[in-house]
């Protein structure tokens, strides 16, 4: 079976193995300490690197006709995924609207590192993808958060108790969110600088990319390992949700991308974006906007269950599914 061999070869990439090492090390209580400032800087590095690369690809290939359908697809996913997540949590999981909305916001938004890992997976398959997919990721960061807050407001108007000034803060923070600005900015710069400009930054932003990702995933493994201790707080329903929801989002997205006729590479990236769950932008926004929601839920689910699931099993599985339908 191709899926199995893909999964196994994915599993034997240094990135995934270092993620697992970090996870195990933390469970064994070994205090490998990657300082937080490094983690944050590497996250910025990745956004610049994929932005530059994406923009440069666009400048070479031009913008094809799929751009518009890609934008529509991004926005569709940004609405459909949080709505489904919200309904499942509220009506099957019997969670209150606030917690349902808080979690839905995370699953509707996206994870940059999952995307980056998927790109690394595609590269190892020599499967191409469109440069503007980085833009699609930037596009998908915020809408689902607003959709989720809107759902909470509809279902739960009087209990929404956050402060007035919050909404303004939140809007500003989401629109000009650090990662949105960095991604779009780097995309534009990558587009503008051409071959010569790219060659000057290649030895820093392109060549060591996978190695840096390895270090970062070691760190992510440790963060996930620490979070897994909160497992009990999450409970069995949310645990399964954190695995099933990505698959649901993936299936919907595979269907949509099939409809739109995107390439295999673009389809996988869309699918991974839909299936991934945010753990940087969404937690910050949700903590401010929905303070009554329990952060132990969404942080643990995103970091310790969905992220590992996606990078280890999800990516090769979605790739297998996409190829199955062709």
């Amino acid at each position, binding site marked *: 079976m191709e899926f199995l061999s893909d999964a196994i070869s994915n599993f034997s990439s240094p990135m995934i193995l270092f993620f697992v090492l970090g996870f195990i090390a933390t469970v064994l209580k070994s205090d490998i300490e990657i300082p*937080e400032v490094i983690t944050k800087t590497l996250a910025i590095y990745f956004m610049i690197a994929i932005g530059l690369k994406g923009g440069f690809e666009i400048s070479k290939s031009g913008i094809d006709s799929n751009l518009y359908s890609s934008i529509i697809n991004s926005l569709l996913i940004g609405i459909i995924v949080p709505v489904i997540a919200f309904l499942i949590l509220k009506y099957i999981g019997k969670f209150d609207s606030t917690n349902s909305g808080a979690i839905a916001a995370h699953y509707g938004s996206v994870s940059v590192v999952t995307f980056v890992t998927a790109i690394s997976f595609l590269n190892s398959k020599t499967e191409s993808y469109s440069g503007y997919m980085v833009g699609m990721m930037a596009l998908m960061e915020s809408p689902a958060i607003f959709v989720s807050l809107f759902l909470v407001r509809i279902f739960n108007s009087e209990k929404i108790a956050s402060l007035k000034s919050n909404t303004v803060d939140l809007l500003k923070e989401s629109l000009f969110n650090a990662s949105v600005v960095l991604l779009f900015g780097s995309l534009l710069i990558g587009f503008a600088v051409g071959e010569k400009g790219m060659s000057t930054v290649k030895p820093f932003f392109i060549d060591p990319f996978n190695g840096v990702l390895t270090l970062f995933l070691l760190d992510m493994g440790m963060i996930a390992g*620490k979070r897994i201790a909160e497992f009990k707080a999450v409970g069995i329903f949310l645990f399964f949700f954190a695995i099933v929801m990505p698959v649901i989002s993936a299936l919907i997205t595979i269907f949509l991308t099939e409809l739109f006729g995107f390439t295999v590479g673009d389809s996988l990236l869309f699918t991974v974006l839909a299936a991934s769950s945010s*753990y*940087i932008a969404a937690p910050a926004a949700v*903590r401010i906007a929905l303070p009554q929601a329990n952060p132990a839920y969404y942080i643990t689910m995103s*970091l310790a269950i969905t992220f590992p699931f996606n990078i280890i099993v999800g990516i090769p599985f979605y790739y297998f599914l996409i190829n199955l339908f062709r």
Partner: protein
Amino acid sequence: MKKLEIIIESVERRRVCRILDEVGVKGYTIIDDIQGRGKTGPKSAQDLSNILKSSLIIVVDEESTIIKAIEQLKEVFKYYSGKMFLSDITVIE
């Protein structure tokens, strides 16, 4: 003079400072990235967002100003995790 020590989760630090500015305190000192444990469990910097960290803000001012600040801050503490401690202090300089 009174010293008010405010421990507040990082995401709300900016709002707390804004309130202090509005109330018109003479000044304040901020220590960021602190950890701790309270009734809502441990708060230690183990995720990529900043939501599991706190800041410590120290305000020294007249009792009346501090009381005004406390009034305003209580609104924040309704929803967000943290503590406020009050004590006596003498300002030398």
